[in-house]
């Protein structure tokens, strides 16, 4: 067991534990904080796979911006354990089944992947480095990339329009 393996298992434990806490904790603020911890663990995994750019962007965008907005909403609406509305039983059941189906599909899709036994690619894989990623995005995938940026722009304009009402 070398150091990358120890890191891998540690990060996996943090990610799974954090994700479980998100679902199980009664206080929504704790849920958000656990989700942030999960994102950190996932970023650690990205770094182990030598995808530093992905790791740091995951932190900036998800842990840094989106989760702050989540916290904002929760704090402003002052959601507490007492006021949190309980979803009905059938909705919970449906959610569990849908999530289980998604897990099944993911496992089935990744079962045949050739990298399923690789834990870490420290200093090996180079697709996640910013230089290669940038070249791939602006050469092969330039049209999907630009289209998605237009999509983001329209979402932004839409948010402003809704906010002005």
């Amino acid at each position, binding site marked *: 067991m070398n150091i990358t393996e120890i890191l891998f298992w540690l990060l996996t434990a943090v990610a799974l534990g954090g994700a479980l806490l998100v679902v199980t904790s009664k206080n929504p*603020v704790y849920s958000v904080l656990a989700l942030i911890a999960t994102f950190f663990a996932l970023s650690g995994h990205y770094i182990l796979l030598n995808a530093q*750019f992905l790791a*740091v962007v995951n932190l900036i965008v998800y*842990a840094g911006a989106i989760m702050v907005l989540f*916290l904002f909403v929760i*704090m402003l609406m002052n959601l507490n354990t007492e006021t949190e509305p309980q979803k009905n039983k059938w909705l919970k059941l449906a959610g569990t089944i849908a999530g289980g189906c998604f897990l099944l599909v993911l496992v089935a899709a990744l079962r045949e992947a050739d990298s399923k036994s690789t834990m870490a690619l420290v200093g090996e894989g180079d697709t996640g480095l910013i230089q290669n990623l940038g070249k791939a995005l602006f050469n092969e995938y330039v049209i999907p990339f630009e289209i998605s940026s237009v999509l983001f722009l329209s979402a932004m304009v839409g948010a402003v329009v809704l906010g002005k009402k």
Partner: protein
Amino acid sequence: MIQLAIDLAFVLEKAILIGGIISVSLLVAMYSTWAERKVAGFMQDRLGPNRAGPFGLFQPLADGLKLFMKEEIIPNASNKFLFILGPGLAMMTAMMTSAVIPWGKQIEIFGRTVDLQIADINIGILYIFAVLSMGVYGIMIGGWASNNKFSLLAALRGASQMISYELAMGLSIIALLMLTGSLSLKTIVELQSASGGWWNIAYQPLGFLIFIVCAFAECNRTPFDLPEAENELNFGYHQEYSSMKLGFYLFAEYINMFMSSVLMATLYFGGYDIPFVNDASLIESMGMNLVAVLQGLSLFLKAAFFIFVFMWVRWTIPRFRYDQLMHLGWKVMIPLALFNMLITAIVVLIRENGWPF
């Protein structure tokens, strides 16, 4: 048995480097509080602290001792875990920035060549932005956990202010990255200190202006210290805090100030580059270690100047109103940064491909 393949000397080297940099940052932050009061005294035609030791130099020690001795109060209705987590997070995120900053070129100890940088990762600037965006949590969690309406309002203000100014800051950095073509801070400094290379301030004056304004807002310093506007919010997000937990919040602000000063020096003013001197030929004539000390000193002098600018502005310019702050951030800074980015992109394109018409 678990066998760990770790180079012990490497770990030791990094541990000493981390310890050294953290203690230096803490020391600088400590004396920033003293310097702030001296500068304030000078601006207001007073003496400033002058009782404890010569020139009041022991004043930070006395203040620290006072904060340690104060009673630790945790409000009954607060969320105890998060209440303690808040100041810890603020302190930690403030310190984490120092990991990617190059403090000097190299030194040679016991035949080992040691880089004076904790981690030279190829996404250095993005790492700093990630840490900066984590800085919001210290304020938000502390403000919310206090269970005080004023604290909560201040925390929300602080968070929205930091998010808004982060955007303009990122855009101003993008223009810089287009010129240097690298995200690694070490490469950026080396490009500036190469012979014939100019400091980035010569190419990016507008970018620097945007960056410094955003740095003020990120550090919650006057004129953008809305999260602790005492005439509206009593004492801001750390209203319920006492003793060293309050000290952590106040101290984190000074560490943030130091780190952004170092960052400004690194990105726009040549980093550890000694001005008017060719560093490479200096290394040949004076030896590597002595030059590294001089380089570190040069970086610290540049940073000290920016810390002074922070204080100068604080005691000169009054606080913004909240709507003015948001107006400045979204309607002035971001368009200016976009404009700067556009101009830089055009210039870079023409320089690389020639005039197309």
